[in-house]
């Protein structure tokens, strides 16, 4: 018993085991700085759902002739859109929208992509079509993807979901 007491007293008098936090915090901070600098942050992306047709060896005939929407990017950054054989618009993003730009040739007006949706809706109604009828986007091979997606977004705006992407040469 006496021996135990003396040992216990010796233990208490000696230094207690210490966890040295300072180097650990240093390392953790270094890691934090490293990951902050090396991380590649990306804004949260949205998605426009699309449905591709099944790949068929032989082309399937559609029940109804789709409304064709031709898209061609212009050198000035706008997109020339022809809805069926009826109307042609120069469509521009709101940031590059400029009313002073002359609309050449047989182009109706200079509009933005939001207005394009409404114009398509007008043509659909005038042709006696419904929003469930197919619409075919016909870009050229040089049309910017940005213009294709914005037009697709304009079709979603008017609840038009039956959209086909044309394959071009």
């Amino acid at each position, binding site marked *: 018993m006496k021996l135990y007491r003396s040992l216990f007293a010796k233990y208490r008098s000696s230094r207690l085991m210490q966890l*040295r936090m300072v*180097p650990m915090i240093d390392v953790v901070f270094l890691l934090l700085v490293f990951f902050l600098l090396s991380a*590649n942050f990306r804004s949260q*992306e*949205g998605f*426009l*759902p699309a449905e591709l047709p099944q790949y068929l060896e032989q082309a399937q005939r559609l029940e109804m002739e789709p409304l064709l929407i031709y898209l061609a990017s212009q050198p000035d950054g706008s997109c020339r859109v022809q809805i069926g054989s009826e109307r042609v618009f120069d469509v521009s993003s709101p940031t590059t929208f400029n009313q002073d730009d002359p609309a050449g040739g047989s182009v109706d007006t200079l509009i933005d992509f939001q207005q394009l949706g409404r114009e398509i809706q007008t043509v659909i109604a005038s042709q006696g079509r419904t929003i469930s009828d197919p619409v075919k986007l016909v870009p050229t091979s040089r049309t910017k*993807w940005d213009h294709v997606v914005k037009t697709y977004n304009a079709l979603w705006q008017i609840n038009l979901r039956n959209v086909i992407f044309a394959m071009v040469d």
Partner: protein
Amino acid sequence: MKKKSHSILRDSQPPQFNMTPMIDVVFLLIIFFMLICQFIVQENYKLEIPDDCAHAIVPDHPDEGAITVSVYPKPVQDDETAQNEVLFAVRSYRFDPADPRYRHDGDLLIADMSRQITEQAQRKSDPLINLRADKDMTYGNVQKALLALARSKITRVQLAAYRSEQMDK
């Protein structure tokens, strides 16, 4: 005799917790995992998806198993003058149309991409594809990715786009 008792006292000091080897091991583990997990970073290709698409849906719980197909401009090196070149990627597998195998046979590129997509899609019952294409890419280029998807009999596709206009360009 006095000397001996001093030595016993010194030896009986309680053990200390040495953090240094632990930090070394932790560092090694971090480096190991960083190298192993590089394929996740590689999917995050530098490209600007179309913006200002108000109808793009930002999912609350993104589908972790979605297969990302990217179409993006080839990074221009200092010694290169070629511009407007495109690269394709199915997850982290990259496809370069400038590769000698594809240069004379464009269909082989689509076939290879399609094979890779099919391989990835086989792991899922209802595969979902996130198509991330740079906004300045031409439709002719993105069409190759669409063709590869169609050949893989993929129907569920999402077109990546930002809901609002991107200010941090």
